[in-house]
């Protein structure tokens, strides 16, 4: 049976086409422009969904996405909201959380168990015996769940984008439209957003037959359309407010991250339901919901309606229903109809009985409303049932009160409070640049809304121009009451719902308060009021009223919970946007790929771990180590931090940042550089090379490159030093040519004198290599004769290829991070952050020589002076016998002696050069000593006894730095 009305003046429908869709296999039809709820209602379908807990039949309530009575899913998607989802051809829906389907939900008998399912029952029941709780938990979750997620979804990228404006107006009702226009006419760039597919807001459903509204509507809409300074975004929700007017605008195509100079919130109000027995039956709806149904979708809400009202808006809605052919059987006014405007008289003159100071006691019906019982109010909450009346009807419309859609005002730090006269929470104090206009500001009369909107826009324009805003937000506020202070009736059978999402009855809130959860935050969490998908939009105000009355407090004293972003739930792919996963590439990346490198991640960088196939990993790594020790290896160390330090105070800066002396580094020489923080803990290590009196070149570890550069800049500023620093980490590539043949190969590619006297160990030189401008350093590194060569990024590949080609005669092999680690471990070099931790001082790390306490100052000096005599731990080297066949050892294994933890292994590895396992361990000082045992507990609980040995494990005298010369001498 169709409930479709003739064409309505501002309807959203395209009557020239039909759209067919199905709900659980049953076919329905509507027009383009219909939402799922309206199309179903138009065809006479009253059962739209079933409730969360009791699976009670539900129908239309707000038709504004302030409730989830109509919640659906299909193969692709879940939590499809019937109120705001347009129907489309071929749409196939099923109702959410209805095992057996909407009509034959197997859980629909749950309501009869409600006495056992009291508020918070899952905290108390089913916990004994304990072992059965998981079973019950599963049952409960299946019974009271929401939609299912299709985990085989298609990946889809919905990029976000940035946008800007000077005035962001939220809500395109009369106040929003006027504010946008006024701001744009004042020269501001305006964005006007509305969650609906069309602008107009309440002007188009609550003022349909009003003559004053008619001219306003046309004028505003035309002006907005014509003005180039207003960008209109419909179907767009302002998701939340973040610092400095940073607002995500959630559009159907994705999220626009918006920076607004100022924000005007004209978001209107959320109509609140009355609380009475069976107030959730299909047919019981908010009056504004009924108005939307008629005005937007041309659907008659019901045939015979009873209205419960407490404001003028209710009477206007009543007249709209009459115009839509609805028979009004009665109007129950919670207060005094004569206090209302002339609308009440207009109704009476139409023959509609109006009852003063009456409340609904109960609605009748099981699958839908069949009647309503009203009774006079005697004391708050109490009704005189002896004087009750019953009316047969198939619809109950409620217009008893409003809550502001003030979420963004709260998030912006606004202070709101309850205005007793209007009966509504209104803004009291808003931060600069944030304004409220229209009904959300407590302004109801249409002409007043426009004035209030102009005031807000004028204030925004003033602030943008740097002036002081002068508007008075209180000036146009209503002097009438628009909300009943107690639209609530107790009932012996309960089922008088406060929160439809959560199936929360009045009794549940009273019980929660009685149990001691008597604070708005506690009662929210214990009862779950406002925690459903609507987040309390239709429930929080009544909950606050109930709690206030129970505790004998005012509404302001009771307070409200924090409204967190997002205002409506958002799709995850919209929130994710496009993923920006930064990666850094060495200039030699392609060379490594061509050479068969297996990469590992070092921060954002990709570095070759080793070269070869995973099956031969260990063999390849050992071969790389052998190549370096015996022949020639080359490694890409481009990820190291590289910083130029220039200027007259360069040496002073470095002297103050590192633990050793830097002022006496000779030109052309380098020095190992260690830095600690103010707690004396090792932070970074690297090399400082001196290129001139006021020119230094500093290298740092890969992971600390950015931080080192940053810190040097900070110290320069703090100490007022005449220094310039340059971060060349990514600009210069670096490769280390290491092995006894390195000097011989390099000599063929450069004119630089590489003899021991001309370019000694630890020297630094600038020269051309293979025609490429380069910096060369002889550093400890892996403990072989070698040269670290730094060249500009775009020249690196050429140099690498040349070295690889010419080095072929010497058996050159590229080696990766793992081989490097083992080679350096053989020399006892520490890895900052692996062999040192958040407490390791240079003394513990066995590097007392690196600390020059005699310097008048360096960062951490005073602390190290205090800690030096108190050193309690020591980093020691250990080894296992060549024929060791015990359990595998790895980092972080504990050193256990006498049943106590005495330290841990920091590095351990098989040494291809020495033929046995070696490692470093940080242990309590009393245990340290060459040849002393080191008991290590393996992962399976066994104790392996290693032996402490001196470090370096390999070439302790450093003879390998002259290995080629010794070879030549020997020959």
């Amino acid at each position, binding site marked *: 049976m169709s409930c479709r009305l003739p064409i309505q003046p501002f309807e959203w429908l395209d009557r020239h086409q039909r759209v067919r869709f199905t709900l659980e296999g049953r076919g329905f039809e509507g027009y383009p422009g219909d939402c799922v709820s309206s199309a179903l209602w138009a065809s006479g379908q009253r059962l739209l969904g079933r409730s969360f807990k009791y699976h009670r039949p539900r129908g239309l309530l707000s038709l504004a996405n302030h409730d989830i009575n109509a919640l659906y899913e299909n193969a692709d998607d879940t939590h499809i909201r019937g109120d705001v989802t347009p129907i489309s051809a071929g749409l196939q829906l099923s109702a959410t959380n209805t095992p057996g389907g909407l009509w034959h939900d197997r859980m629909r008998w749950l309501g009869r168990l409600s006495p056992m399912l009291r508020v918070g029952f899952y905290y108390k029941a089913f916990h004994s015996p304990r072992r059965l709780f998981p079973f019950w938990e599963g049952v409960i979750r299946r019974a009271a769940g929401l939609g299912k997620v299709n985990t085989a979804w298609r990946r889809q990228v919905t990029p976000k984008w940035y946008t800007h404006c000077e005035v962001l107006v939220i809500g395109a009702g009369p106040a929003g439209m006027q504010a946008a226009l006024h701001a744009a006419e004042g020269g501001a760039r305006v964005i006007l957003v509305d969650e609906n597919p069309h602008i107009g807001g309440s002007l188009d459903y609550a003022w349909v037959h009003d003559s004053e509204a008619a001219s306003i509507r046309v004028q505003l809409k035309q002006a907005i359309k014509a003005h180039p300074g207003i960008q209109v975004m419909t179907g767009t929700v302002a998701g939340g407010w*973040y*610092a*400095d007017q*940073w607002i995500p605008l959630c559009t159907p195509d994705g999220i626009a991250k918006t920076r607004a100079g100022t924000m005007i919130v004209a978001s209107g109000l959320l109509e609140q339901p009355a609380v009475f027995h069976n107030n959730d039956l299909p047919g019981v709806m908010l009056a504004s919901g009924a108005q939307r149904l008629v005005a937007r979708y041309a659907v008659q809400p019901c045939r015979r309606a009873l209205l419960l009202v407490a404001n003028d808006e209710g009477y206007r809605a009543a007249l709209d229903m009459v115009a839509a052919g609805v028979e009004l059987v009665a109007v129950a006014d919670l207060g005094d109809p004569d206090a209302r405007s002339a609308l009440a008289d207009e109704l009476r003159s139409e023959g509609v009985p109006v009852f003063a100071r009456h409340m609904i006691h109960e609605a009748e019906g099981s699958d839908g409303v069949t009647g309503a019982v009203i009774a006079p109010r005697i004391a708050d909450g109490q009704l005189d049932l002896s004087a009750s009346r019953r009316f047969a009807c198939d619809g109950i419309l409620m217009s008893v009160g409003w809550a502001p859609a003030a979420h963004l005002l709260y998030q912006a730090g606004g202070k709101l409070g309850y205005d007793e006269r209007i009966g509504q929470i209104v803004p009291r104090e808003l931060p600069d640049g944030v304004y409220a206009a229209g009904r959300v500001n407590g302004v109801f009369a249409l002409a007043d809304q426009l004035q209030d909107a102009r005031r807000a826009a004028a204030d925004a324009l003033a602030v943008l121009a740097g002036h002081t805003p002068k508007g008075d937000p209180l000036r146009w506020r209503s002097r009438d009451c628009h909300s009943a202070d107690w639209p609530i009736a107790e009932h012996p059978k309960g089922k008088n719902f406060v929160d439809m999402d959560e199936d929360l009855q009045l009794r549940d809130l009273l019980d929660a308060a009685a149990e001691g959860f008597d604070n708005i935050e506690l009662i929210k969490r214990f009862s779950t009021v406002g925690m459903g998908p609507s987040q309390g939009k239709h429930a929080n105000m009544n909950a606050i009223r109930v709690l206030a009355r129970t505790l004998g407090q005012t509404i302001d004293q009771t307070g409200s919970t924090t409204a967190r972003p997002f205002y409506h739930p958002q799709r995850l792919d919209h929130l994710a946007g496009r993923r920006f996963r930064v990666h850094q590439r060495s200039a030699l990346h392609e060379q490594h790929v061509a050479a068969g490198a297996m990469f590992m991640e070092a921060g954002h960088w990709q570095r070759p771990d080793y070269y070869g196939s995973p099956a031969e990993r260990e063999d390849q790594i050992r071969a790389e180590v052998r190549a370096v020790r015996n022949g020639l290896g080359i490694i890409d160390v481009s990820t190291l931090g590289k910083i130029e330090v220039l200027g007259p105070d360069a*040496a*002073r800066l470095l*002297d*103050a940042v590192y633990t050793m*002396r830097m*002022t*006496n580094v000779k030109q052309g020489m380098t020095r190992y550089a260690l830095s600690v923080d*103010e*707690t004396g803990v090792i932070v970074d290590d690297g090399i400082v090379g001196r290129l001139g009196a006021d020119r230094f070149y500093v290298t740092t570890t890969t992971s600390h490159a950015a931080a080192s*550069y*940053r810190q040097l*800049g*900070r110290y320069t*500023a*703090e*100490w*007022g*030093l005449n220094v310039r620093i340059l*971060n060349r980490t990514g600009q210069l590539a670096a490769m280390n040519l290491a092995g006894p043949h390195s000097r011989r190969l390099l000599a063929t590619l450069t004119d630089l004198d590489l003899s021991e006297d001309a370019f000694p160990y630890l020297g630094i030189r600038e020269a051309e290599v293979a025609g490429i401008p380069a910096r060369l350093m002889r550093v400890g590194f892996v403990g072989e004769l070698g040269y670290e060569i730094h060249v500009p990024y775009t020249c690196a590949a050429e140099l690498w290829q040349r070295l690889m080609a010419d080095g072929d005669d010497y058996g050159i092999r590229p080696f990766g991070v793992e081989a490097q680690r083992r080679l350096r471990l053989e020399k006892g070099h520490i890895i900052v952050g692996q062999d040192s931790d958040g407490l390791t001082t240079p003394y513990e790390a066995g590097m007392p020589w690196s600390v020059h306490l*005699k*310097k*008048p*100052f360096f960062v951490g000096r*005073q*602390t190290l002076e*205090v800690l030096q005599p108190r050193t309690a731990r020591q980093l020691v080297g250990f080894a296992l016998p060549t024929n060791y066949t015990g359990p595998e050892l790895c980092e972080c294994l504990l050193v256990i002696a006498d049943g106590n933890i005495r330290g841990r292994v920091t590095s351990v590895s098989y040494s291809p050069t020495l033929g046995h396992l070696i490692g470093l361990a940080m242990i309590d000082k009393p245990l340290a000593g060459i040849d002393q045992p080191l008991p290590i507990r393996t992962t399976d609980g066994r104790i392996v006894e290693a032996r402490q040995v001196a470090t370096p494990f390999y070439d302790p005298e450093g003879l390998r730095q002259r290995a080629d010369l010794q070879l030549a001498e020997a020959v």
Partner: protein
Amino acid sequence: MKLIPLPDLGPRPRSEFDYGGELRRPPMGADTALWAAYVFNRQGAPGLLREWWYHRPTGAWYLFERDTLADRFIRHIPVQDIQYELPSADPAV
């Protein structure tokens, strides 16, 4: 997200910055107890804090005074106003 009002470049979002902590001057030569307090303790109560901020796109350091309760930037502090002299460096070069 929060905007930080750079005096030369205008407001930039906080995501362009690394936070450098409170501006503090080490009490050189203080006794161990005072030095330890400086090293380990911080001003936690809400109030006006002078803080270092590093702007990554330009590599520049800035100092601001911020009301940590209201999370509002009060003013920019030129670094010259807070610089202090390093104890003289080792004279041997």
